[in-house]
């Protein structure tokens, strides 16, 4: 079967959920090989990748790979593409994943498709564009197809693979070392899942009214094990940090469940969440456009409805 490279996303040695999704997707297209870039590789990570079907695991664990911005990972993948001529390369469509895909495309003289929400036979990718208004099927016509796939596009399903490990040594070029990371600053986000990866996202908008009031959004999120998001009105006001903004100029999320509270549903907000599988809305204005895309909506004051919902969820646990 043809080899499909899957670039592993990992944090603190843990394989991220999106990688398990990509391995699952890759199994439907060929035989997945996981590519581990940077330090942190452990037996647990190996077991996890094999559990989800990695036939091979390429491990390039040099510290240098993460000490410079993006370019080293693209060089690593380009080397693997030239050594083993895979049928395709899949990366997660995160901001960095897309940048890696872009540089790789140039190095390997290949086309790239970004923000795929599905990939089928012949590496034809599904894209949802213009804020979810148009569905496109597109494909790479030159080189090795490189596809950046959105988190939450495929449900991860375990199916063991051989997990044969292969160490990769890579000598980085000078230009790959041009942008050096001199400090990593971790900002507290509690124990919540990452916004783009989360299965459930609870977002607050202008209706939340203040930064302090976001505590009730966080409580609801925590009762569901969800990530917290915010509209631009809320991040502009400084009520919630910008990295949690959902929408056209923020993050694109595609969770199983998206709960929008005190958000009107401007097209720019919808552009970042319209592909969510189930949408629940809490808003006091029955005319708010967000109700048009709601699977379930409550017309009411979020300060009444949200705490009651949280309490009810806690009761049912």
């Amino acid at each position, binding site marked *: 079967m043809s080899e499909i490279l899957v670039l592993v996303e990992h*944090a603190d040695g843990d394989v991220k959920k999106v990688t398990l999704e990509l391995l699952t997707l890759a199994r439907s297209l060929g035989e997945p090989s996981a590519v581990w870039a940077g330090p942190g590789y452990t037996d647990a990570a190996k077991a996890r990748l094999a559990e989800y079907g990695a036939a091979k695991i390429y491990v390039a664990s040099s510290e240098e790979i993460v000490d410079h911005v993006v370019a080293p990972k693209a060089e690593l993948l380009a080397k693997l593409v030239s050594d083993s001529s895979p049928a395709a390369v899949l990366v997660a469509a995160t901001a960095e994943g897309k940048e890696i895909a*872009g540089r790789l495309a140039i190095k390997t003289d290949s086309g790239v498709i970004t923000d795929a929400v599905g990939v089928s036979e012949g590496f034809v990718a599904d894209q949802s564009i213009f804020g979810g208004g148009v569905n496109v099927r*597109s494909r790479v*016509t*030159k080189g090795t197809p490189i596809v950046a796939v959105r988190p939450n596009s495929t449900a991860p399903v375990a199916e063991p693979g051989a997990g044969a490990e292969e160490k990769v040594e890579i000598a980085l070029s000078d230009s790959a070392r041009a942008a050096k*990371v001199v400090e990593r*600053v971790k900002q507290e986000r509690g124990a919540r899942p990452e916004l783009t990866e989360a299965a459930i996202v609870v977002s607050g908008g202008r209706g939340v009214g203040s930064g302090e009031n976001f505590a009730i959004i966080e409580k609801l999120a925590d009762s569901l094990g969800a990530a917290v998001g915010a509209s631009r009105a809320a991040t502009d006001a400084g009520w919630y940090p910008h990295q949690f903004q959902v929408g056209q100029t923020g993050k694109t999320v595609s969770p199983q469940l998206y709960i929008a509270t005190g958000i009107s549903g401007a097209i720019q907000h919808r552009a970042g969440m319209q592909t969510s599988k189930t949408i629940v809305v809490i808003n006091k204005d029955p005319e708010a456009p967000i109700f048009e895309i709601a699977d379930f909506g409550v017309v*009411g004051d979020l300060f009444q409805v949200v705490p009651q919902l949280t309490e009810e969820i806690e009761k049912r646990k």
Partner: protein
Amino acid sequence: MNIVVCVKQVPDTATERKLRSDDKTLDRDAADGVVNELDEYAVEEALRLKEAHGGEVTVLTMGPAKATETIRKALAMGADKAVHLSDDALHGSDALSTSYALAETLKKIGFDLVILGSESTDARTGVLAAMLAERLGAPQLTLANKVEVDGSAITIQRVTDYGYDRVEASLPAVVSVVEKINEPRYPSFKGIMAAKKKPVESLAIGDAEISAEQVGLASAWSEVVEFAAAPPRAAGTVVKDEGDGGVKAAEFLASKKFV
């Protein structure tokens, strides 16, 4: 410092955006063209760096004749001059060809610093800055929410999932900016008047030694196979809160096995 800002004209997100049925490319006539919003932040950052360190700000746009409106807006904000790469041969270019055409133009016009938005609102690929860094062999300083220049040294804060990375490099470099980096200025009346007299150099592909074989729809590395309007979402249930809205919402979540 010679700063070049890449600015893209995009269809206004507030209007209905379409693909053309004939060649499946963006229908640029169907909607009003506006400056890609993040590119206003890129222009603002360039102006601030110029104000602090001296130099010149050049706007670079690749796009049809209509894109001059976008160029004028950037000039009205305070950029000094513009280069408009415009040629029918560029129509339908994908990200690889666009980055190639912009890189060739940048080599021709020269730069110490190139600043882009981190993403456009129409195609949203978010790859151009990384591709330009690759093609130009320049350091990639992307997703910046802070930029500092000191002589030939440049430092940014790169936004990450966990917070940010501080990244160092030397000029020349390629930077992309995120939304909260600054507050773009509104063009003043004086700025708008002055923009009308600022030089805009129009280049066809031959002028920048761009090969026709590497740009345009026919040479693209990817293609749209088909497209269709997304089916509308099935209408959901909306209830009015009668004191039990939270309970009702919980019941819905339970019916979908979320709780």
